[in-house]
């Protein structure tokens, strides 16, 4: 076992580019997609074709821009209309003193949201105006705003026992997701060394040597595990300690889940190896299946979007779903060992089944 392990390690030390590339890749992907503020503002052009157009525009622009989701920008009519026609913005708003008209490219839900918001602002303004009568509207508005500082009705979201509910953290989900996803590639490429050895004849020469077959397999598989796990550890350590991401208080538990996940993925890669003959075929099939796994497992989407039972069942066949669930539970909800036992056991089960079938398929092949 050890000589095989060492020989594989030597190969990677001589040309470490694959691993470095994939490690850097997972940090890079996380940075581009997870490190950005996902809640971006939608820009909506506004214009007025009235005589005192600029006055009307100024007035409504300041009133409409009191929110976080939309940014209303003053523009002229022609520009706004071409923007909408060419699909650069979903809707534009034509303003008059007391009324508005939405100019939309099509009847989408996003347009409906904009309309709802604009309607509320206009209605409130109309009511303010009516309420202030002959007095100054701005004075009434200030009074109303002062009153609303301490509104009579408000809502308090809490957990069942009255504590805080942690806000779901999509950034963290993407961070774990990309890290595990990239590790899946590394693991696959490393397990593929078994087939590469067979094709190059090294495997046959090893069989003639005093090495046992178990030793040959364990050497390769343990090395794949070692590299895959190291990659995950390095990425997580960088994020947790160097870049200051808060991954919760149980880094040890996170690493345990990562280790079990790696083990399970090594087995899964072995199963793929069982179906193919040459390393090139592996490089063709494995990378075309793997990118779909996070899509199906819902790594890129907030939880709850995927609800189809068939899809959930397929996702459960891959260790990624269980690992993601356990990691999020640990870092967000401070889950203990009891809560993550089930995902750990399921991952181990997937690992045992895949490894059993995979090694059998490899051994029974008649070349």
């Amino acid at each position, binding site marked *: 076992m050890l000589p095989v392990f060492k020989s594989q390690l030597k190969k990677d030390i001589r040309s470490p*580019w*694959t691993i470095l*590339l*994939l490690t850097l890749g997972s940090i890079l992907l996380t940075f*581009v*997609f997870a490190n*950005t503020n996902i809640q*971006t503002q939608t820009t909506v052009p506004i214009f007025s074709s009235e005589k005192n157009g600029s006055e009307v525009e100024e007035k409504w622009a300041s009133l409409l821009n009191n929110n976080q989701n939309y940014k209303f920008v003053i523009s002229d009519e022609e520009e706004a209309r071409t923007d*909408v026609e060419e*699909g650069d913005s979903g809707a534009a708003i034509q303003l008059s003193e007391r009324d*508005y*008209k939405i100019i*939309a*490219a*099509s*009847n*989408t*839900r*996003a*347009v409906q949201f904009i309309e709802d918001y604009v*309607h509320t602002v*206009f*209605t409130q303004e*109309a*009511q303010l105006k*009516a*309420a202030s*009568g002959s007095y100054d509207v701005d004075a*009434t508005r200030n*009074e*109303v705003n002062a*009153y*609303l500082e301490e*509104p*009579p*009705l*408000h*809502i*308090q*979201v*809490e957990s*069942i026992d009255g504590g805080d509910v942690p806000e*779901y953290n999509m950034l963290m989900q993407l961070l774990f997701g990309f890290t595990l996803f990239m590790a899946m*590639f590394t693991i696959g490429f490393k397990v593929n*060394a078994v087939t*590469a050895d067979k094709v190059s004849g090294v495997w046959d020469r090893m069989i003639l040597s005093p090495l046992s077959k178990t030793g040959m397999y364990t050497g390769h598989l343990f090395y794949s595990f070692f590299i895959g796990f190291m990659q995950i550890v390095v990425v997580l350590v960088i994020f947790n300690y160097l870049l200051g991401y808060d991954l919760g208080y149980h880094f040890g538990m996170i690493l345990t889940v990562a280790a079990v996940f790696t083990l399970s993925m090594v087995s899964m890669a072995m199963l793929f190896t069982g179906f193919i003959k040459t*390393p*090139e075929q592996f*490089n*063709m099939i494995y990378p*075309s299946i793997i*990118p*779909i796994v996070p899509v199906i497992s819902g790594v*890129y989407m907030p939880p*709850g*979007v995927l*609800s189809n039972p*068939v*899809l959930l069942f*397929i996702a459960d066949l891959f260790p990624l779903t269980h690992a993601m669930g356990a990691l999020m539970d640990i870092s967000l909800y401070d889950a203990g060992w009891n809560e993550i036992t089930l995902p750990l056991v399921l991952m181990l089960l997937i690992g045992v089944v895949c490894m059993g079938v995979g090694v059998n398929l490899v051994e029974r092949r008649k070349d």
Partner: protein
Amino acid sequence: MISFFKKDLLVFWRDRKEVLISLLVPILIIIVLNFAFSGKTFEDAGDIDIHAGLVLEDNEAAGLRQFEETLLEMDLPEMEIEAMMEQAEALSPSGLMVSLFNDPDLNDWIHAQEISELEAIELVENSELDAIVKIPEGFTYDLLGHVMLDQPANTAIHVQIEEHSIETNILTDMINHYMETLNFQFALGAVTEGEAGDAVLPQGGREVINESAVEIDLAQYFTVAMSSLFALFIAATVAAKTATEKRERVFNRILLTNSHPFSYLMGKIISTFCLTWIQLMLVFFATNLLLGIFTGKSAEFWLGIIVIVTFFSLSVAGLSAIFTSLMLRMKNVNTAHGLFMMVIMVIAALGGNFFPVEQFPAWVQALSEWTPTGITVSLFTEFLQYGNAISFAGPLLKQSGFFIGFLLIGILMFPGRGRA
């Protein structure tokens, strides 16, 4: 060159099983995803069905009585107390909250039931309820005091949930919106003390430029996203075949036959183009026949698809030129594969093949417009939404630019005689 093209097609033909897999996998995946997402668009999560438990700890009658006692203690004239009590009963604070959940418009998708707290907690823990809306004890009295006597009090409605989900977010947003409207009315009432005139409410109105435009649904998005992703894999596959030819010294033998090395590269490019084109068209036609994703589209639509697919296939063919040259140059086959995968993953992630890029910041979206898949996905979705009202020239020009650029890089990196 033709003989090399023939050779590459034969190489694929000999590996029928693998080629068939790479042709069928995208169709299979689209079928699965379509099954899961059919009829859904990005803004909604399909049919939302919210189950909430309404826990009424507040006793309205007792609250009103307590309020009356407070008024009596305040040394007010009897007439005024009576008027205020009438107003308080009309206001009916907890009734206001309960009436929200009895709104017939909402009852289609919000199912609220009045239950006891213990029962509610059990149901939430069994995931049968999404949230508990709790109107706390003394709510009536506190709110009346706040609104009518200006006595600040903590009058929060408690929404208890186990964890955040789409359902709970919609529920809290809705309650919040309802409360904001009420608060605004309270504020107006307090500020003007009931002397308001009639408001001239806005009429609104909507002018839709393109009535026939349709919202793209997830099944259609995934069809184009997945098929273009798998097209990128073909470029890597062709390079993988090159690795076999390198290992078995086919390439060196080809060089010895005194044929121009570029012919070899050209054979790869043309065969990639053909394979990509066939794969994409197959995916579009097969998914349409099997799932009816694009039913009722005109011949013009399919012509547009053919144009988009053709230009995208060119880009992929160009990419395969780079990959082939790199494969011949790099010593370690696995490193080369890692590199190809990274390149493909970055292009795919930026191009919106895994998730729509609309939710990411402007600079990511701008970058997306400069990846072959990003151009294809956005051109396709726009084409689907607005028909041929959109301009094809820009995206197709970019796509050709990619083809030529990739091709040049591929040729420049291609190892000459004696270097491979």
